[in-house]
């Protein structure tokens, strides 16, 4: 019995040794996951803040400095109107907008009446929004207490919080648009890679190569059905999101569709790149994992990008999912338009172009 077990055991260890890919992956993925989960700090830090400071007084500067000192906020923009404040949030450049009244200076001194701070909060990320609101309230309260200690009756600073999108702070509004990005990653990259690797694995690619069909016709002909499939998938998820989860779509559906094609182009190219390097479907899956995992953890899908440690944020910005999730959330939750999202659109376009170039090159090489 022990001898039998040893025989099978020895054979299995030989298999493992002959398959360095699996071994590498088995060791690498937990290390990667642990590092990412360990480094990611879910307490909210560096929330981008847009400030519309009407008073431009020492008091207003002090207040903003105190907000920054809490490390919860960092001033991303200073704007000159309430509309601009709102626009910064729609475009996703700021999560919170703070409007300091003209009379902050005077009222802070006299404290005849309370001075109202208008706080606009992007509700799309419910946890970030809640923590940001707490931080503003906390600061306002402690400031007020300082003034009260000097014997004034009314609370001198009174924040008036207005949650701009997703006012009920439901997590579905955040998660589902992000999920779209992740779902498309699976179908776009993995299915594409499989479609091509399968031909190689089964030996059918060789028969295809002796026909007069051009490589472009072969590759495009194989990719287009998966592009179509992914678009159908997108439609299904959007309908489910709208009807079952009741997440409204505030922006332009057509724009979302068009930018999804841009995103899918980058995913299909990546699938092609993976397939050019892989001999078997197992190998392709392993390669795809190395891309899918960061796409889930570093794209802002689960953790806000601000929670990702700075060096890893470089990786975040190189992932197509990061930009698409920002685009999907912007369009669906905040009603953002092309002009608001141009940076992400441009970044995604560049990534897609680079991947297409690399993948056609790699594929041509494997065919010859």
């Amino acid at each position, binding site marked *: 019995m022990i001898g039998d077990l040893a025989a099978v055991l020895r054979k299995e260890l030989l298999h493992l040794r002959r398959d360095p890919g699996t071994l590498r992956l088995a060791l690498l993925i937990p290390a990667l996951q642990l590092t990412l989960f360990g480094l990611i700090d879910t307490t909210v830090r560096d929330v981008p803040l847009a400030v519309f400071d009407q008073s431009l007084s020492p008091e207003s500067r002090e207040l903003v400095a105190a907000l920054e000192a809490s490390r919860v906020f960092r001033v991303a923009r200073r704007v000159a109107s309430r509309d601009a404040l709102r626009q910064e949030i729609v475009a996703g450049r700021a999560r919170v907008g703070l409007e300091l009244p003209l009379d902050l200076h005077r009222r802070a001194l006299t404290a005849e009446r309370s001075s109202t701070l208008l706080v606009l909060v992007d509700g799309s990320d419910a946890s970030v929004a809640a923590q940001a609101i707490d931080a503003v309230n906390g600061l306002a309260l402690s400031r007020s207490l300082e003034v009260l200690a000097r014997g004034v009756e009314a609370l001198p600073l009174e924040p008036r919080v207005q949650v701009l999108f997703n006012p009920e702070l439901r997590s579905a509004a955040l998660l589902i648009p992000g999920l779209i990005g992740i779902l498309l990653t699976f179908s776009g990259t993995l299915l594409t890679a499989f479609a091509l690797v399968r031909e190689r694995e089964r030996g059918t690619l060789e028969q295809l190569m002796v026909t*007069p069909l051009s490589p472009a016709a072969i590759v495009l002909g194989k990719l287009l059905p998966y592009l179509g499939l992914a678009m159908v998938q997108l439609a299904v998820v959007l309908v489910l999101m709208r009807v079952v989860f009741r997440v409204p779509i505030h922006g332009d559906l057509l724009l979302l569709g068009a930018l999804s094609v841009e995103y899918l182009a980058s995913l299909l190219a990546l699938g092609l790149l993976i397939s050019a390097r892989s001999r078997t479907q197992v190998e392709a899956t392993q390669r795809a994992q190395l891309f899918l995992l960061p796409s889930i953890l570093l794209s802002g899908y689960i953790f806000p990008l601000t929670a990702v440690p700075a060096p890893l944020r470089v990786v975040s910005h190189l992932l197509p999912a990061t930009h698409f999730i920002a685009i999907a959330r912007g369009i669906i939750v905040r009603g953002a338009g092309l002009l608001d999202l141009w940076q992400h659109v441009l970044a995604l376009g560049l990534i897609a172009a680079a991947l297409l170039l690399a993948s056609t090159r790699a594929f041509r090489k494997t065919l010859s």
Partner: protein
Amino acid sequence: MSGASDGQAGVVVQGVSRDFGPLRALDRVSLAVARGTVFGLLGPNGSGKSTLIRLLCGLLAPSEGVVEVDGLDVASRGEEVRRRVGYVPQRFSLYDDLTVAENLDFYAAAYGLRGAERRRRREEAAALVGVASQGGRLAGVLSGGWRQRLSLAAAIMHRPRVLLLDEPTAGIDPVARRALWDLLFSLAGEGVTLLVSTHYMDEAERCSRVGYLFQSRLLAEGPPDALRARPDVTPSGTRRLEAELGPGVAAGLARARALPYVREATIFGTALHLLVDDRATDAAVARDLGARALRPAPPSLEDAFVRLTALQGAERPGR
């Protein structure tokens, strides 16, 4: 026979080598196959047969030398060559999850056949190889023989001038094997040039010419009869005998190989095929082996290849 110059050759290979990194898979191979004839390519596994066939259909480029198919240089006119070549790889490489008809339709379309013409050629090819009755079945559930017929049908729909087959009969039963070869000869009769690799000597015997690849080099090439009659196959001063031994043949083989005048010995049923020096008389051979009967045996094609391989080993002791 025909060479590159007379334009009658369907396939011309001139001084072709192919390297894979440090490995030389083909070493200065030259051969020509006349139009409408069947060329048999033989050699042990790994000798370069598949590499040569893949060079001919343009899947690989030669490291040196020239490959011409139907009078066209494969390197510079690959696109035209592909339209004139049919290729049946060693491994079944049509789609398991498509039906017989769907596979044929796809390949007909891949070769540029459209509309009614596509349908006609597809049905023609299916009828010729006899898979018409299997049209609705998935290719994946077909037996080996049916699969090979289907592969052949897919390779001939565009009416290739040259047909390349890599071990088309490996692993299929004798009846299916015979049927496939009948088909190949009928194609040759229509003027198609065929190059077929095989391990079966009976198939090789039926070819117009055969080539024997060994360790990346073409050791011999010519009609089967000429190869058997080569002087180095049965050198002067030796002769080939068949010794009938009965049930003790296995012990007889060891005994024969220990005899100084026996150069080669192989079992055929209950008999030994021997290559012996003429200094030993028939009576001596019969006595030493305890043979019941002794008769002259002309060399088979296999004898010829075994002999050529042995000579090669003697010439290059390093390998």
